[in-house]
């Protein structure tokens, strides 16, 4: 599928969740997610005709989202922005019962905390590999890095993930639930 054959509206509807999810996993905070998502689709809108269909559409979208997340992270660092408390409650399905809600909040907070312990490059590799199911070669292509680098970042990402889960089991509060000084 090439850009000329794509309908922007259709593309948006089909891939909005992917872009949103990707940005969140790359550390874009809840308060900024709409702006960041909008940025991604503005770029998509502008570049749609240039999409040649050689890569998967999601790969292309991820690359755009990654650049935007990275850019926002740089700006946040320059401005010394501090994470506000995430409104985890907003993401909870209201149909769940209270205990399940709390459990899910905690799991999501812990997941975000684990991601927050990785740098952006590790996050990208970790989420693409573990959650999006891309292969090492595909990730290397998306991020334009050597395959060995993909593996080393994946290893570091996994270590960070495990460490955070262990910390949580030892009674530490997930860092996603407290203000943080690092991230996007």
């Amino acid at each position, binding site marked *: 599928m090439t850009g000329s054959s794509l309908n922007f509206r259709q593309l948006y509807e089909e891939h909005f969740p992917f872009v949103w999810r990707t940005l*969140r996993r790359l550390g874009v905070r809840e308060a900024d997610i709409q702006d960041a998502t909008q940025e991604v689709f503005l770029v998509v809108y502008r570049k749609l005709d240039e999409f040649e269909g050689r890569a998967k559409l999601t790969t292309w979208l991820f690359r755009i989202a990654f650049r935007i997340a990275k850019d926002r992270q740089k700006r946040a660092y320059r401005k010394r922005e501090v994470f506000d408390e995430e409104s985890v409650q907003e*993401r909870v399905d209201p149909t769940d019962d209270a205990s399940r809600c709390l459990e899910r909040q905690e799991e999501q907070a812990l997941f975000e905390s684990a991601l927050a312990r990785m740098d952006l490059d590790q996050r990208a590799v970790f989420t693409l590999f573990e959650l999006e199911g891309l292969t090492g070669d595909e990730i290397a292509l998306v991020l334009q890095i050597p395959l060995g680098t993909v593996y080393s970042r994946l290893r570091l990402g996994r270590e960070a993930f495990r460490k955070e889960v262990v910390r949580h089991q030892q009674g530490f509060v997930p860092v996603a639930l407290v203000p943080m000084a690092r991230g996007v």
Partner: protein
Amino acid sequence: MTDPKRWLDDQESLSFQELKVLKAGQKMEPPSGSEDATWAALLASLPPVVPPMDPSVLEGLNQASAQAATKTAAVVGASSAGAGKLASITGGLGVLSLLKSVGVGAIVASMAVVSYQVVVRPTTPTAPLVVPMPTTKGGSTTANADSNPVTHNASTHNGSKGNSGVVVTKQTPLLVENSPSKSATNAIKNDSKASPKSDAIRNNQVRPQAVKHNKVNVLADKPGAQPTIPVPNEAPPEMPHQPGVVESKPAGKEKSVGTAVLDESRLVMKARTALRSGQSGEASRILSELSRRFPRGVLMQEREVLAIELLWNAGQSGAACSRGQQFLLRFPQSPHASRIRGWCSL
């Protein structure tokens, strides 16, 4: 080199807790309504353009013309079948029929055009982008500004997709090239350099009662100068807009509403551009004009947040926050609320 086994495919390598957390990350989904809100904001960040003629309307017009031509041919054929003395009479009738057919065709065509203007059409494959066009009956208005001085955009009061009066197509180069939105243009040019901050408008937010125009001094371009910006305390329209509901209106009124929205949108973008380029005085002037010309404008929130940002940029953080508090009281559910709270730590 071969890939390591994916954790979710090799769950035995994970502890129970690790697996639960990983699955929680996998299930991460956007909250309900965020897709519509982002879509509305996305469209609003692009300048509205005059809608191109819908292909179905063109097709209808062509069909009407074809029918008229067919009738004409039939009439001409019938008249030419006559002979002798009746030939001239038949010819006359043919001409009358021809005129009648043309008239019918014109009426059908005009009806098609009018119905196109009135009816809200869903997105068609050839019209990828549909800009929601709020009407004057729309309850809320939009405003937008953000703490990042590079970015900003507007949005319509109706976040629902496909509720439109203006159609923007991917094939319209003006969308990008002539975009008055600096942030949007930057975002497009630099892919990720700009952050076109915008928020969607949510319907039926708050309806304040009075319509007033106060003035607040803010810093002007020149040191010492005191330009003013309006404090729009006007109430939004009484009737909330119902998403997806088609409001039948006279074509002329619909057109004037659309024109007003376009004008208001342009002015908001001009104000934003002036503000972001450091022309506080010009931004103030445009905001005043906006307040005067469109006291109940659909971009009222946009205007107000720009005014707050203007105050903030001018160093009048106290005034900005005071105004921000008023804004939050009036529009507690506004998509700009979190930004204003962020400025003022409210």
